[in-house]
């Protein structure tokens, strides 16, 4: 059995679900961020798989992947800065306890 696009799509769907599960069900804000990173990666894997299997000649998918990775890096930087700021305020990084947006 050869590895087909199917396998990659399944894998990334599975990873996406895992990331979503983590992002939705964990209490800790940092783990929520990590779940989001997992989802990001699953998406990027899809791009690359499609590029490899279908649009090999054009670079669009790779470009998208590069941009997505950069955005993910920026997102995680901002997200963690927010976590630190929230921690300063609430002395906790529990997402259930962050109920008010007032500083």
């Amino acid at each position, binding site marked *: 059995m050869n590895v087909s696009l199917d396998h990659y799509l399944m894998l990334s769907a599975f990873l996406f679900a895992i990331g979503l599960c983590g992002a939705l069900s964990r209490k800790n804000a940092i783990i929520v961020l990590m779940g989001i990173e997992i989802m990001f990666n699953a998406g990027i894997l899809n791009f690359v798989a499609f590029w490899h299997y279908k649009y090999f000649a054009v670079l669009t998918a790779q470009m998208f992947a590069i941009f997505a990775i950069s955005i993910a890096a*920026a997102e995680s930087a901002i997200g963690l800065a927010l976590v630190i700021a929230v921690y300063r305020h609430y002395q906790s990084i529990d997402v259930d306890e962050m109920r008010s947006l007032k500083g």
Partner: protein
Amino acid sequence: MEIAFWILSAITVIGAILAITMRNLVHCVLSLILFFLGIAGHYLLLRADFLFAVQVLIYIGAVAVLILFAIMLTRHVTGTEGPREVLGGKWWAGMGTAVIIAGLLWAIIRKDPLAAMLPAGMASTSVTEIGRALVADWLVPFEAMGVLLTAALIGAVVIALEEVIRKR
């Protein structure tokens, strides 16, 4: 190819699952790094060498280290975590959503005629091509990305330093 795919998939999935289920935060990050490595391996397998390097450099070298720093800054890293609740209040809702989405995606992929496709080509793209593409066809998004990253950098510093700035 097949063996490598299955091994890497196993690493990736185990890494992802451990990353969101482990109790100790640092263990979570270490599992997340395993997951990132698995993804990087997949890129290598898919002949995207440049993306492999970018993945390792950015995700393992930068994002993971950033998360570690965030953990260090927000907890007593030397102490062990007590028996605290790790799951959020409505965890079952999150789990349910995840399962439903996984099922939906599964169904869609099974149906799709594109899915059973085999590789179009096997040679890796050279970095030169990517570089040319970035500064020719993709120049505007590339520059926009530069602006975005700068803004994110400044934003992150401002948010994290808020207290210090306010004190002055």
